[in-house]
């Protein structure tokens, strides 16, 4: 196989890029004390040591469950409100400032305010919702407004059923926007949810574990948890895209 053909492989390029950054990480860690900046080896060792601990799995399940609830609620309501606002100018007008506020207010500010209203163990649900809702709402609204008017006319003249109109006209236009919303919002939901937990410190949460690592100057633990969050974010994004692809296939929309 030619060198250029091997290089063309996507995974190989990613591996090389990852290796480069691991080397940079290792290089920086050699210049600093481990308590301030743990290198890749102590981080992986700490991660392996954490794996059998029940705290890790409890925290993961609780955090993921809450972020998942917030994410799904935001996706559901974002979709419903996008549909309403497409049909009603009044609803669009009313929602505009709310969405603008959700987009602009820093997540940390929102978390501090939200902690006045809700218990700390609910904060990640609310934070994930707060971050995901505007992404879904805006993307779906744009997708719906991008639907070709001429195709809508075609559906009207041929008197297509709702299901057929959805398949042939709406989904092909909206799906790219929905995919973008999925890609962007999964990682954002996890990041915002964990940020909420770090401030609210609910029991059994990733945020609490990160905070404790910081408190005990366990930098390797802190980095290990960060690695877990990155891996989770990537895995969730892939899972969600797989689910969307499955829906697309089922509905006859291109993947």
């Amino acid at each position, binding site marked *: 196989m030619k060198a250029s053909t091997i290089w063309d492989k996507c995974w190989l390029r990613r591996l090389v890029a990852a290796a480069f950054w691991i080397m940079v990480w290792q290089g920086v860690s050699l210049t600093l004390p481990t308590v301030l900046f743990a290198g890749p080896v102590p981080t992986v060792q700490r991660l392996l040591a954490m794996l059998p601990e029940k705290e890790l799995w409890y925290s993961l399940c609780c955090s993921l469950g809450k972020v998942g609830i917030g994410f799904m609620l935001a996706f559901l309501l974002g979709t419903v409100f996008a549909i309403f606002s497409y049909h009603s100018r009044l609803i669009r007008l009313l929602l505009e400032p709310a969405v603008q506020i959700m987009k602009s207010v820093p997540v940390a500010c929102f978390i501090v305010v939200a902690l006045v209203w809700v218990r700390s163990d609910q904060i990640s649900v609310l934070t994930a919702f707060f971050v995901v809702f505007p992404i879904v709402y805006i993307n779906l609204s744009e997708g719906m407004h991008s639907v070709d008017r001429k195709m809508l*006319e*075609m559906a009207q*003249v*041929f008197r297509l059923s709702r299901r057929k109109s959805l398949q042939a*006209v709406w989904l*092909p236009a909206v799906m790219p926007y929905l995919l973008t919303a999925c890609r962007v919002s999964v990682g954002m939901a996890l990041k915002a949810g964990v940020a909420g937990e770090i401030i609210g410190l609910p029991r059994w949460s990733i945020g609490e574990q990160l905070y404790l690592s910081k408190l005990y100057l366990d930098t390797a633990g802190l980095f290990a948890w960060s690695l877990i969050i990155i891996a989770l974010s990537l895995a969730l994004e892939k899972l969600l895209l797989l689910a969307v692809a499955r829906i697309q296939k089922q509905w006859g929309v291109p993947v």
Partner: protein
Amino acid sequence: MIRLEQVTKGYDGKCVINRLNWQIGKGERWRITGASGAGKTTLLRLLMGVDLPDSGYVIGAEQLRFCPVFQEDRLTGHWSALQNVALVCEEGSRVRDILSALLSSDALNQPVFTLSGGMRRRAALARALAADGDILILDEPFTGLDEQTALRAWNTVLRYQEGRTLILVSHGISLPDEEMQTMAL
């Protein structure tokens, strides 16, 4: 069957159709003629109820089902010709007959965005012919087709008209006058 009474329609202050009277009977064949911009497509849109007249009446069209070839193909690009046709009717031997009369077999299952302009046009024509309805509305259905292919397509139209009213707008291709009435704009 459909009656237009004193129908007037304009865009941006320009009158396109002025006080038009027209009566179309069941099963009739009509050809609409006129220069570019004379209002042929506008007239078809008024018939289908996609546009409303500024004044006058279109009577009897609302309960009819139209089978149109629009000025543009208006096909779902990533679907095959077969899927596009199956969208408007039950897939069966009739649909396959219509499609195979208009398109080669290897073009039937390809996504329509990969087909040539002429093939997409014929897929749109196949969809109109296969659809269940009362009136065939064909707005430039032979665009992108050479004379011979257009004639073959026209014969397919006549074969599958099946008692439906036919209204045709076609430029540039000379078709045999199959007892067609003319509406000149």
